[in-house]
């Protein structure tokens, strides 16, 4: 029992990301409104970003910005304590991922607008009905 609690607390970020991801996935598949699906899509993507950020975290680490001692211009590699700084690589990757997600979001909204113009609704089943009824 204690182990389980330790496991849950020790990795709570990972549990959170799984929950969020599943919420997003559920929304993409099950929701009927196209905009709701889009929101689900974004939640899904942010969940993955959360996962990456969690990978990079180090307990007791600080921001990945090197502190250069006062009066110095630079700092020698040997004097840097690696465990002091959080892993920067996942951050970089996720910056890219955020940008990708906002780009996709913009394009998807534009397409949703086009759909609304054509069908005057954003409900998927109504659109399908219109398509079939044609």
């Amino acid at each position, binding site marked *: 029992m204690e182990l389980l609690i330790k496991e849950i607390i020790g990795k709570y970020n990972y549990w959170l990301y799984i929950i969020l991801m599943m919420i997003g*996935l559920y929304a*993409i598949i099950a929701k009927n409104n*196209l905009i709701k*699906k889009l929101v689900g*899509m974004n939640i*899904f*993507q942010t969940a*993955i970003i959360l*996962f*990456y950020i969690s*990978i990079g975290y180090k307990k007791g680490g600080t921001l990945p910005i090197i502190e250069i001692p006062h009066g110095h211009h630079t700092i020698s590699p040997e004097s840097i304590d690696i465990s002091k700084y959080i892993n920067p*690589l*996942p951050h970089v*990757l996720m910056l*890219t*991922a955020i940008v*990708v997600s906002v*780009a*996709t979001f913009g*394009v*998807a909204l*534009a*397409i*949703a607008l*086009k*759909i609304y113009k*054509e*069908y005057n609704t954003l409900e998927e089943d109504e*659109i399908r009905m219109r*398509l079939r009824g*044609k």
Partner: protein
Amino acid sequence: MIDNHVFPILIVITPLVCAFFVMGLYWVDKRLCLPLTILAISISFISSIITLYSVLTSGTIQYKLGGWPPPIGIEYRIDLLNGVILVIISFISLFNLFTSFNQVSHDFPEKKGTFYSLYLLFTTGLLGVVITGDLFNLYVLLEITSLSAYAQIALGDKKRAPFASLNYIFIGVIGASFYLLGVGYIYMMTGSLNMGDVAHLIHNLHHSQAIFVAFIFCIVGVWIKMALFPLHIWLPNAYTYAPTASGRIIAPLMTKVMVYVMIRLMYSVFGIDYLFNTLHISQSIIYLSSAAVLFGGIMALSQDNLKKMFTYIIISEIGYMVGGAWLGNKTGLTGAILHIINDVFMTFALFLSAGNFAWRIKDLSIHNLEDIFQKMPWTSTGFVVVALSIIGIPPTCGFFSKWYLILGAIEAKQYLFIIALILSSLLNIILFFRVFEKSLFSSKPHVMESKETRSYNLIEEAPANMTIGLLVIGAILILIGLYSGKIVSNLILPFIPKGL
């Protein structure tokens, strides 16, 4: 290994930079957009040929971006497999420009320039996906490709394309995110993103559950993007309603590049040992791909719209390649790779012919194709050649890839897959001869002048650039078939990893 070679980077950079130029030029002089696009892709094409040549003469090429050594920075790693596919992608992209410029001016009279910019970005994305040696870089380029594909598809048929495209976005994003998640798991367990480095590090992690999940998510993500059978739902509508000029390039290249990515992940990242000795899923994947082959064929039979029929053929062909790659022997993989090459050309030719028909006939239902052979003889000739290739009649190329696939399946004792392949050929016969019967032999009397047939009688051959394009591709289909022995022994077999 050669280092500091300028051509690998030119392949990707030229279309990219020219995409910006084309966008800028759009506001200055719209007439310059097309020539610039052609120039960009030509340079890319030539560079990829040179690159392939140097790969052939001196082995794998490595290009360090930013000058950083691989695990630190991003690298390009070009071996035979992606060398060949690069040449094919840039060729198809270039060729499509010649066959479709009038189509583009017809569809997008005002936004032609920006369309070409998008087209260039799409090409860049595909080339980048193929050339890169970095897992995350692949994701970014995949997104460029997908994003430009979503936009291009949404520009198609006014009524149905946006909806199809939005559905594609939803499912495509799930696919890409799954891939990203898989890469995240790999990164967490190994700490690296470089393919070669990961392949090296993964050796000690064969029994890790996280690596297994990473593998599953990467592969499923790629499958979603390539539309393997149960994950294919986005494909038929999206490709059917895409504008002709883009559909022609998206349909043949997108799925095939994803198959390439799958092969790359399987053989260059996870490794044969992991795939076939640690995991025991190849059997079920072959069942899945057999199902895909059959499902695609059967669904294609039930379609009335010519283009939609072609999209289901793509789904069926995807099954061929996935099955071949998972057979786990040399011949099967050879067949899968050969089929990638062949299928690019076959699908391209299919969509070319559909585009030519659509240029004259608005609604591409099969019954509208009555007697089309008389009206558009050259297009129909091209169409017949492609159809024969898809059925798998020698000496067209489709026969030879099918040959290797079946041979591989026999070696691997996957009898279900053999049956699926053969049944699919038979389904394709019915599929295409149903069209031929309509198009070759009309039951109508020859001279008819009623009101509804008048517009029909006016149908004539599509513009010369489209027709000649189709015929050239038809000839290429036969040439590839005849030289498939050389292709296999020179371009494919050296890539096949040892121990397979």
